[in-house]
């Protein structure tokens, strides 16, 4: 055997020596092809994040500078009512709008899945808000929630004079009005993603459930829903990016009001970077916002790594 190996080796000059060390093939083209991604990931996002952190320790005003002031910006940030309220709002908005989107989106998807004749029409109706600029649709929502112009007065004029529906006028409820607007805007996409997920579920599961005599709603809830992990995850990530960046819709609907009841971290960041000319403060806020995202992604990586390790062990 070994003799053969030798002869064969010598027969092919230039093909190395025995034992030849494994060499990973390195694909240049793959790197060339992803240069835009590398530049974006490293050149934009990483650099941005690093500089955001650096500038958050400076007293940068209109333009970034490097006059370090320690944790001053963070101290101010966390002693600011507005920031604290914004953070609270982000959670309220995030939780309610994501849950609302998912639940409503799933319901819509389920109902759309009932061999609806006018599926095309309904789908377009549910999707169109995503295409509209929030600058004005926010205004229209504001009108509709206006106690004197909108739904409340229209219903009152119909005779139900006790009817109260003006969420945006009160500090306590305004955020839910925004949530409603957010759901209006985004639920169509969620519906589309979940509908696609529903359609991807093995038809035989349905048959099995029917034979078992499981009512349709239970099938949807307990059997099909848990099978749609991919779709749910996609919809969830899309919504999370939307929630963290939520800006336009709040500006359009409430301008952060009444008072500062519907302020959001992104508005805080953006205002400070631009009009309030306090880049240091804005960057401190931005860096703070990124921390939970970093934590989640790190957790994800850790879980993946752990799962891989476990698999390798097995």
């Amino acid at each position, binding site marked *: 055997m070994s003799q053969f190996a030798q002869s064969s080796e010598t027969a092919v000059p230039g093909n190395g020596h025995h034992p030849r060390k494994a060499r990973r093939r390195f694909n240049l083209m793959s790197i060339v092809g992803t240069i835009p991604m590398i530049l974006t990931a490293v050149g934009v996002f990483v650099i941005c994040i690093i500089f955001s952190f650096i500038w958050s320790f400076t007293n940068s005003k209109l333009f970034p500078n490097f006059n370090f002031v320690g944790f001053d910006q963070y101290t101010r940030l966390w002693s600011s009512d507005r920031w604290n309220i914004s953070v609270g709002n982000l959670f309220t908005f995030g939780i309610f709008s994501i849950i609302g989107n998912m639940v409503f989106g799933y319901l819509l998807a389920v109902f759309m899945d009932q061999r609806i004749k006018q599926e095309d029409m309904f789908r377009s109706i549910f999707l169109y808000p995503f295409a509209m600029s929030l600058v004005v649709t926010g205004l229209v929502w504001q009108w509709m929630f206006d106690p004197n112009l909108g739904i409340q007065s229209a219903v009152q004029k119909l005779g139900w004079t006790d009817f109260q529906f003006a969420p945006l006028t009160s500090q306590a409820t305004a955020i839910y009005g925004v949530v409603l607007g957010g759901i209006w805007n985004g639920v169509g996409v969620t519906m589309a993603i979940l509908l696609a997920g529903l359609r991807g579920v093995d038809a035989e599961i349905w048959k099995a459930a029917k034979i078992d005599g499981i009512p349709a709603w239970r099938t949807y809830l307990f059997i099909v829903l848990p099978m749609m992990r991919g779709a749910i995850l996609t919809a969830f990530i899309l919504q999370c990016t939307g929630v963290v960046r939520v800006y336009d819709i709040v500006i359009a609907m409430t301008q952060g009001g009444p008072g500062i009841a519907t302020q959001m971290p992104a508005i805080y960041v*953006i205002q400070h970077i631009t009009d309030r000319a306090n880049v240091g403060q804005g960057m401190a806020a931005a860096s703070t916002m990124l921390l939970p995202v970093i934590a989640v992604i790190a957790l994800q990586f850790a879980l993946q790594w752990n799962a891989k390790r476990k698999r390798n062990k097995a």
Partner: protein
Amino acid sequence: MTSETMSVSNGTKGAIEPRGAKPKKLTAARIGVYAFLVISALFFLMPLYVMIVTSLKGLPEIRLGLLFNLPQEITFEPWLKAWDTACTGRDCNGLKPGFINSLKITLISVPISIVVAMLNGYALSFWKYKGSELLFGILIFGAFVPYQVVIYPLIIGLREVGLFGTLPGIVIVHTIFGMPILTLLFRNFFASLPPELFKAARVDGAGFWQIFFQIMLPMSVPIAIVAVILQTTGIWNDFLFGTVFAGRENMPMTVQLNNIVTTTTGVREYNVNMAATILTAAVPLTVYFISGKWFVRGIAAGAVKG
């Protein structure tokens, strides 16, 4: 198949022997389904309805504050004004001039950003290299960064390469910000393709680019439609990047829309605002109505897997 589950049997059974097709009956469940959908549809359409009727009213009628009433006197004046004569600063040409710019930006940015994201997804699925997963992680992370935070380095970067305030500049910016979600989309799609396809092409001697252009690109039409829809909407409605990066000559339509709609110290013409909004949304809306069907199919084609 799934949709049968909601159909409910009627009561005929036992001794009587039914013949022929199952009698079609409008059951309570069926009515409930439609009721839910119709009510939801009303919820979704309400703002559009308000916008449309408002855009057809004169200002005095709007001041009456009867939001849901149909216009007593229909006027198309606001639409003409929004399109043609509304002033946005010194110029009074309505939305018209920006339309071409928006079209230009969208038509160039959408394909480029999609091809770039497609390449990323392709490389991340089939040509992984050391660190490629990390890059992807950073990219996904970038999806959570507020745009404004990223603007300063971008401005400086583009200034250094001399592309600030130019059409290529704005295209690059849209490509960058579209990249995270689109790359995720395409990566998931390619990951759902059979790896044998890639292997077969490798055996056939095709390299990175040949496999991409001749095999993967034509196959990714369904998911590309999803990407087109998302990107068209995003780019068409973009205001922030347009004002900063596009340069004066390329200001998108949304700048004009915003100029019409936002007044600090001046009279608001709500009817014109509404008409302008609907006009501005016309392009993405058309895209939605034409390709809505493909949207769901495209997502089903792979975006939801993994």
